Every structure is written in C-alpha cells, then in structure tokens.
C-alpha cells in the first residue's frame, strides 16, 4: 500500500476535485451575486488602415485608398511587417516602408501606424497589451459588453466616510473579496485581474437623496490587486480561492467605456437604445463642474476684466487751454469758443476730457464719461474738437481724441478677462488659445503648434 499523500505533483487529484466542488458549493450557497465587467485590453489609439490591393510579392510598397492621415516616420505594425519598420515615403495611395514585408500582403489586410514607439498598436485586442510602455499604464480601456455573473464572499465592513476634500478618500471602502478560481475561470475565461470592474448587486441603493434619478445607484468596485487567498488552500496544497482587493470605482478615463456605454434607460438591456449613461447618473463629476462654473461666475462678477473699472468715473472736461469749462462752451467747427450759447448744441464738438483716468490697466475699450465714440479702422473726416474715436485696427484697440490739430492717443484697451480661455487676452493666452490658421503651399497651417512639432509634417485628419 502506498503511503498516504494528499499532495500530488502534476494533475489534480480526486481529493482536490472533491474539495474544490465542496468549496464551489459553498460559494453557490452562501456567496453573493457579483457582476463582472471584464477588461479586454486598451482601445486602439493609433491609425488603422486596410490595404486596398494585394502585394504581388514581398515588397516595401503597400497600397491604400488614401494615405492622407499617414505621416512619414510613423512606425508600422502588422502581420508580415518587421518590428520597427517605418514609413519612409508616401504618395496619395501608396506607402513605402523602410523594410520589405516578410510575406506578400493580401488585399484588405489591416496595418497600423503609430508615432510613439512606446505607445504602440497591437494587432489583437488583448488584456495582455499595454497602452503606454513608458508610463506602463492602460488609460483607455475596453470592457466586454457582456457582463459575467459570479459568486463571491467578503466580510462586510463599516465604512467611515472621509469627506475631506474629495468626498470619500482613497482607501476608505477598500474590501477584500474571494472568488472560486475554477468557477471564475469557467465563467470569465481567465482569472479576475486588476482593472476588472465588479458590481455588488446586493449594495444597490434604491434611496439616494435625489429621488428623481431614473434608476437605483449601483455599487461598483474596481479590482486593484489579486492573489491566492491564504484560506483557500486545501489539504492538497492547491489553491481554490482568488482573493481580490477592491476599491470603489471612480468616474475616470479608465472606466469611461463602462460608464458611457451602459445606458440606464434602455428598454432592452444591451440594445443601445438608451440616452442616459450610467456615468451621468452615478458620477459626481458633473456636479463638480457645476460648482466650478458657479465659482467662475462669482469670480467674473468680482473681476470681469483685469485692472480697474473706471467707466463709472466722471472726468472733468477741460478746454483747450487746460481749464475747466465752467462756462458753457460753444465750439465752432474751427475750434473757436463762441459766446452765443449757454449749452452745448449740435454745432459744438464734444465737451470731452483731455485726459482719461490714469492707472494700472484702467481701459477696456469703452469711452470716457460715456460720450459718443466713433469705432472704426480709420479716423473720421471733418472731426470737431473733443471727438473720440476707437481704432479697432490697433492691437490693443486704441482710443483717440481730436484736439483741433491732431488725434491724440488717450488709452489702449488693455483690460482682459482673467478666466482661462479664448476671451483671455493676456500674452500667454494669446499663445495658448490662438486657433487661427493660414494657407500656404502645404495647405492650412495652424498658427498654434507645439514647439517640438512646429514645422514638421502632420496628418491632415
């Protein structure tokens, strides 16, 4: 009789299978239902094109219906393409590679083109792919549209809210949940891995504060770490349980595929007929943006433009000799003072100040004392003394006053919105927010270009 041994190298023993089935039953009997959104790998981030015709033989020339979005120097990925191959030339319909294909490509073969070697394209959608080989992260994740139902067991915990700064703080709500490995693989096709998203169905919240929400709020977690559970080893020494550390899901770039794709108002689940995304119902981000908008509005009310508002101030007009016109002025068209009128009449010029309010950033393109101003790109003809004109062809716009002999510069429009954006006319903002283009021999050229990419050829799309 051989010596008893529960341990056996190689194939699992019946002891193992017996114990494993009992453990599976325990999950079926006592586990909670968990829905798993399976991570499939990163979304394709680069250019994917199909060949328009077959290669007669191995060659460096490949035909496409259009090559407009392909740039010289791009890396090429594809079957029969050597790793590190680049685009060295192109015409409207053909691309020349730096190396011959290893076999002749048939028509409608998919090739991929990418610029950063550390952010490559992959030929297959796979959870093994890494989107960014430099930062080693998968930012734009793709999830299975199918949802997998598993059973899991975890120890419920009292959650302490740490609302400082961010509502619920990072570690708060971290749980450890265990799955039956073989059941998990049978259902999911692989073990649960970090990045998979699970929904604990029994934690659905039917009573949120906003009772107008169209659906109950579901509890999502993301898997952050997995390993064999210590309590999941049987006397055979083989593991049966998969222990996962889970954190509350955040509405972030990584999970947009779930949060945007799932429509909570679909009449038939999975039909894609709904309009209300899961993210819009469950996420706090839109509320934060509304709060931010309110703060910006308050800030813009306090300081609509940089500098100081002097438009409400009254500047005492002065006569040509610099005195206050305490006597009513009548100015003839030639600038002489008349004595025939006690008030300004239509024949007189504007009784305008010769000096604006002086100060740091005090002019926003208006006029002085609310007096009429001519806005244009040239000076008006036959002006009268005191006439004001705002030249919009000056940058910044400039206000002039006619003193009888010449147009005297009064102020430059130097006040600007301080909210970052296109209305912000600061020097830095002019560099950041300039969306203008011009046309030259290469077509439309954007004025704003990154320094590292300036003057380099770009794709047209």
């Amino acid at each position, binding site marked *: 009789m051989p010596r008893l041994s529960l341990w056996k190298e190689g194939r699992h023993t019946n002891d193992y299978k017996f114990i494993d089935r009992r453990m599976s039953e325990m999950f079926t009997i006592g586990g909670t239902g968990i829905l798993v959104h399976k991570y499939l790998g990163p979304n*394709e981030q680069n250019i994917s094109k199909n060949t328009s015709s077959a290669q007669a033989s191995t060659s460096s020339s490949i035909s496409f219906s259009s090559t407009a979005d392909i740039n010289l120097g791009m890396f090429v990925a594809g079957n029969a393409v050597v790793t590190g191959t680049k685009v060295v030339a192109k015409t409207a319909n053909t691309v020349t590679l730096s190396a011959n294909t290893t076999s002749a490509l048939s028509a409608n073969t998919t090739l991929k083109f990418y610029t950063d070697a550390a952010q490559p394209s992959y030929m297959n959608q796979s959870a093994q792919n890494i989107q960014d080989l430099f930062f080693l992260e998968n930012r734009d994740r793709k999830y299975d549209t199918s949802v997998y139902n598993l059973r899991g067991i975890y120890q419920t915990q009292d959650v302490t809210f740490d609302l400082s700064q*961010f509502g619920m703080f990072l570690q708060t709500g971290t749980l450890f949940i265990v799955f039956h490995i073989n059941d998990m693989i049978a259902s999911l096709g692989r073990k649960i891995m970090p990045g998979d998203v699970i929904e604990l169905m029994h934690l659905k919240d039917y009573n949120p504060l906003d009772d107008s929400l169209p659906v109950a709020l579901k509890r999502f977690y993301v898997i952050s770490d997995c390993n064999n559970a210590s309590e999941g080893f049987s006397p055979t020494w083989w593991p049966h349980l998969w222990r996962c550390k889970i954190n509350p899901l955040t509405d972030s770039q990584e999970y947009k595929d779930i949060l945007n794709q799932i429509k909570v108002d679909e009449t038939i689940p999975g039909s894609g007929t709904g309009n209300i995304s899961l993210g819009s119902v469950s996420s706090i981000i839109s509320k934060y943006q509304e709060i931010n908008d309110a703060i910006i509005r308050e800030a813009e009310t306090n300081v609509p433009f*940089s500098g100081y508002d002097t438009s409400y*101030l009254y500047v005492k007009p002065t006569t040509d000799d610099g005195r206050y016109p305490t006597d009513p002025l009548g100015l003839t068209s030639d600038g002489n003072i008349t004595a025939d009128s006690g008030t300004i009449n239509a024949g007189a010029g504007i009784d305008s100040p010769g000096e604006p309010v002086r100060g740091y950033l005090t002019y926003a393109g208006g006029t002085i004392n609310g007096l009429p101003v001519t806005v244009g790109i040239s000076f008006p003809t036959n002006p009268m003394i005191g006439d004001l004109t705002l030249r919009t062809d000056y940058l910044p716009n400039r206000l002039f006053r006619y003193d009888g002999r010449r147009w005297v510069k009064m102020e430059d429009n130097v006040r600007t919105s301080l909210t970052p954006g296109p209305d912000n006319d600061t020097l830095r903002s002019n560099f950041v927010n300039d969306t203008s283009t011009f046309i030259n021999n290469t077509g439309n050229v954007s004025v704003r270009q990154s320094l590292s990419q300036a003057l380099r050829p770009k794709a047209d799309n």
Partner: protein
Amino acid sequence: MAQQFFYDGQIRRFLVQFIRAVSNFDVEFGRDRDGTKTLQRVPVYYGDPSRQAATILKGNSENTLNGVPAMSAYISGLTYEQSRMQDPFFVDKMNLRQRRYDPDTGLYDTQQGDAYTIERLMPVPYKLTVKLDIWTSNTEQKMQIIEQLATLFNPSLEIQSTDNYIDWTSLSLIQLIEVNWSSRTVPASVEEPIDIATLTFDMPIWISSPAKVKKLGVIQKIINNIYDEQGKFTEDTILTNLVSRMVVSPINYSVFYSGNQLKLLKQHEIANDDGSLIVTQPPNNWRSVIEIYGTLVTGESEIRLSLPTGTELIGLITYHPTDPTILLYTPIEDTAPTNTLSPVNAVINPINVTVNNNLTNPSNGTRYLLTDDIGSAINLSGSVIWGSLIAKANDIIEYNGTTWNVVFDSATIKTTEYITNLNTNVQYRWTGEEWVKSVEGVYRGGDWSLVI
C-alpha cells in the same frame, strides 16, 4: 456697545480668483471604442467642504462615483508679514467724481453724478498659503494638467480680488512655492485609482479695514496765519481775532443774492462802485460749477453766506427750472440775522408821502424809517402831519400818542443794526452809514460756501 460688524469677504475673493485662475483646463482622453478622442474639463472646487455639503454632493449614497481628474484648493496658512508692513496710521485720501447713475436703467449717463472723498487706512499685510490638489487617475493625465498649469507661473501669476478702482489692496500674485508630485509611495505596489499631486502657492495679500466714503471735501477757507499780532496762538486767534488771514474760494467766483435768486459772478464782473453789476457774456452756469464738487441734492444742498456779524445765512438751493444761470435760494429762517431794533411800519419819503389816516391819526407806537430829511430848526411852525419834528434821512421816527420823535439817530449810531419793514417784510441792515438790505447783495469768493 459692541464694535460695529464688518466683513467684506476679502480672503474669500482671493480664493475665488485663485480657483478661477486654475479653472477651465482640459485633459484629453484617448480614443474610445469608436475611435473618438474627448476632452474633459477638470473641475476645480474648494477642498474643505462641510460634511453635510459633501454628503449632499454624493447624493447621500455610498454608490456615487467620485470623478477624476479634478482639482481642489484650500487654505493651508495665513501669516502676518512683518516685512511688508508700512505706516499703520497712514490714511490715504482720494477724491472721485462719479458719472450720474440712472437707477431705472442701471446705466451711467454722460453727466457728472456724486462726488466723494474716500479715506483709506493702511491695510494689513498677510501671506495667504493655498494648496492645490490635483487628482488624477493616471500619469499621462497628470502630465497633461501639470504642463498646462506650469506655464502660468513665470515667476508668478497676477490676480485681483476686485476691479474697484478705489481698492488699493485688490492686486496680488500667485507664487508657486512647492510641488509635491505624488501622494503615493513610488513605486506603487498596488493599483491605486487616484493619485494626488499637491502644488503649494503663496499669495501676498492685504486685509483692509472699511474705508470712509464722504461727500467730496472742498477747501472753502484757508487760514494761512494762526497767530495774532503778538505772535500768540490762542483759541480766539483761530476763531475770531485773526489779524492776518486769507479767505479764498478755489475757483474765485462771487455770488449775487437778490430776491430768492443767486447768480454766479466772476471777479471782474463786479465792477461798479454803486453795486450795479457788469456781467459779461456768456452768463455763468451754476451746474457746471456745482458739478466740480458733486451733485446738487434738492432739499439738502446749501449755500452759506457769511454775514458781517460773523454768522452765516444758510439757505437751501435748487436749480432754476429754465435759467441755468440762476440758483433758487431759500434761506433758513433761523439763520437770518436777528432784528436789533423794533420793526418799522413802513419806509417812507416824508416829503411826498401820501397823507392818509396812518399819518393824520397814527396809533401810538407807529414807526417809520425815513428816506429823506424832514423839518428844520428855523421852521418854528412845523407841519400839520409831523409837527415840529426834525429828522434826517435814515432816521427812524416813532409816534408816542402825541408827537413824532426820532428814536434812531442815524448821525450818531455806528453799530450794525437790523430792522424789518413790516410793510414789505424786508429786513434791512444799518451799516453805520446807510440802510441796505440785510443779506442781499454781492458775496465775494470766500464769503460764501457751497455744501452739497
């Protein structure tokens, strides 16, 4: 009694502007399953909410998803900066005129409105330290935000708490002091959903006491010597007995008071010795003068006329409805000179006065002010009406039930006296030489003042 409450939200306004300065930045998400790239704005909010407000934002549910990227700003310090301290007792004054405001339209028109003098006490310097937490879910996202923010501070970013021209403390700047790149331990051993980078900023700010906003203060009288002829400095010297003083009007105008009207005169327009006026054209416009100092408020604005007695006649003013050269003047009765003599029943010329019952049968105590002489020492028979009365022009006579007697001998009285003519209710002033209307006439620059 408790100190008056004041709160202007000064620190709040700086914090609001700080959040504005770092708002409106986007991050770019990569291509989704449809190949579409998206931009998402990074919200910025105050990072120290109350527990209740935070719970409301989360919908009172554990299932609400936190969102990233996001930024939160909060104050981590406020310290007094001795190095920026200046004279704490310094009071700065600025004089401003506003354009006239139309409360119905909410607009300012082209005319002058109110004028003010603003007194500002030296503000107190503080250093406001603010932390900005940047919440991201991946390194690329953090890079995108940091790269956009990093160009803002070179070396600092100027911000303002208000755009009020009067607020001399509104300008400040944001200085990036420190960057704490990550809240996580690097290398991260497990996948954390959120990373926090913390940027620390300093803002040199000022906290101000309330300002004093007053009606525009205008120098009406300048006393340039406060010592008497003996070189003594006493209260009397200042108040009454100044031997060397200069009273000026800033624009050197005079006013002519007649009836209930005031006219504005330049110095050279008062020319004739007889008091007649030579007014050059164009006539002077009251509005343009008053608006140098502010706005005339009907029922409140006053003109004060300095009287020879040292008192002032105070009257309310309003613009004439049609004539801009005239100001309607309503003296306040209590400020008018008090009569020093009993009133007279009439001012008469005794030579050609109409003889009626008032003369033929006057009642006891009837008093008249004479504009011409009557009677003579050589006319022993006297007249039917006046009897043997002998009086001079400017004398006041009174009937005692039997005869007329001189009760005010103009030849001997040199003090200033006031009397009212009951027939016209006009008050007259005895100058020592002649009777003149008590308050009407020309008031030169410095002898009148405008209170608006």
